[in-house]
């Protein structure tokens, strides 16, 4: 993953992929791209087509309705491709994690992608409801190797 990250880290072109969010996370993405936060100083550029993108900014739980389109968009992104899962919904499904109309967050999506033979080179998680623009910039800085990872995954078992 490190090697693939090396290829894109100086020029991160992002494609905004709303998979069923409430739109609050999307507004925060737009905020991160405004001159105030100036994401372009990290080489970030918002692109209009997944074919140009390196990173997909995924917001919201993945609804059953949007799933085929989400898979299409991910397949259309040339490799190496990464996903930044935004918000509680994107990261783990949020309050919709077990509802009838969604598959949950990005983890369930990656599983489905694997089954279909669609590879993703890495996933970054930005929790929050909604995310703060600074948190999104932190993820970008993490990709560029400017900051340290803040959290690590742990599995707690209750005896």
């Amino acid at each position, binding site marked *: 993953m490190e090697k693939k990250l090396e290829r894109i880290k100086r020029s991160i072109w992002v494609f905004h992929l709303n998979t069923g969010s409430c739109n609050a996370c999307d507004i925060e993405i737009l905020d991160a791209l405004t001159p105030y936060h100036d994401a372009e100083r990290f080489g970030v550029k918002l692109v209009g087509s997944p074919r140009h993108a390196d990173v997909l900014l995924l917001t919201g739980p993945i609804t059953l309705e949007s799933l085929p389109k989400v898979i299409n968009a991910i397949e259309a992104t*040339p490799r190496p491709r990464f996903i930044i899962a935004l918000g509680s919904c994107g990261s783990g499904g949020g309050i919709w994690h077990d509802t009838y109309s969604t598959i949950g967050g990005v983890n369930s999506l990656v599983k489905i992608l694997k089954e279909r033979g669609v590879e993703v080179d890495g996933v970054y998680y930005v929790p929050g409801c909604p995310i703060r623009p600074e948190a999104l910039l932190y993820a970008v800085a993490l990709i560029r190797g400017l900051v340290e990872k803040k959290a690590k995954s742990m599995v707690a078992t209750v005896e």
Partner: protein
Amino acid sequence: MEFILLTSTSITVLLVNTILPVIMDGVERKIKARIQSRIGPPIVQTLYDLLKLLEKEVKPLHIMPFILLTIIAYLSTIIASLYFINLYTITGEAYYSITAITLFAISLTSNTLTPLLLPSPFTYTGGMREVILSIVNEPAFIVSFVLASTSLRLLNLQSPNIWILIALSISLTTLVLSSYAITGRIPFDIAEAEPEIASGVLLEFSGKILALLLLSNLIKRFIVKYIVSSLILVYIIGAGLTCLAASILLTIALWIIYAIVAAILGRSRVDLAPITLGKVYILLLALSITVLLVGIYGG
């Protein structure tokens, strides 16, 4: 010997001319950022972008051979045009400038063809907008170039004919205006139109092909300014290597001016920009031709 020297100089300058647009695009992005009170990307950002795209996967298109053909035609004619402008600036021979401008027109046509080959509605819409812009811009660019060079040849600096001087200023204004519009900057960015047709003409391309197209577009931006610069400077300081260096410097200065203008202008309605531009061109060219004829036959 002279031929070898000329060719090697032109090829060296050609390499500089290919790298320079990439750096200048970075400068333009930096200028835009400073005008918007932000830090902006580093000056070499566009170079990073292109290098990254060269390493990315290419998503196949079902008519790939045709697409490749038009892109290669675009890139090769645009580089050949650059080569002939260099020759013109060094030697001052008019036929080099005519060859350069002909090759440039061919390159623009092959560029217009590429998006029309794709079945995507977004690309097609962008392609049609590119066609409309080309119909308005290209004749104006070529005619104003011919008028400006004719006026320059007729102008005697010791005792300038006032009519020819007026014709020259009008044709140079038209040339600069059309060279701005050809570069696809705001408000003439309707073919790519990122806000409403999602990158338009570029939508379906990825990886190395996208990198080639972006590089060709940057060279196109460079050429239109370079043609104007060398036309003026060959007349003022005479052809030669000094003129070549001065032309490159003037091109850089023009690029910075265009960047500032683009950063402070807003987008306009899709149909409004080409129509207004067409009307302005007709007026300016008619005026320039009339004044030039008065200068030749009446003055």
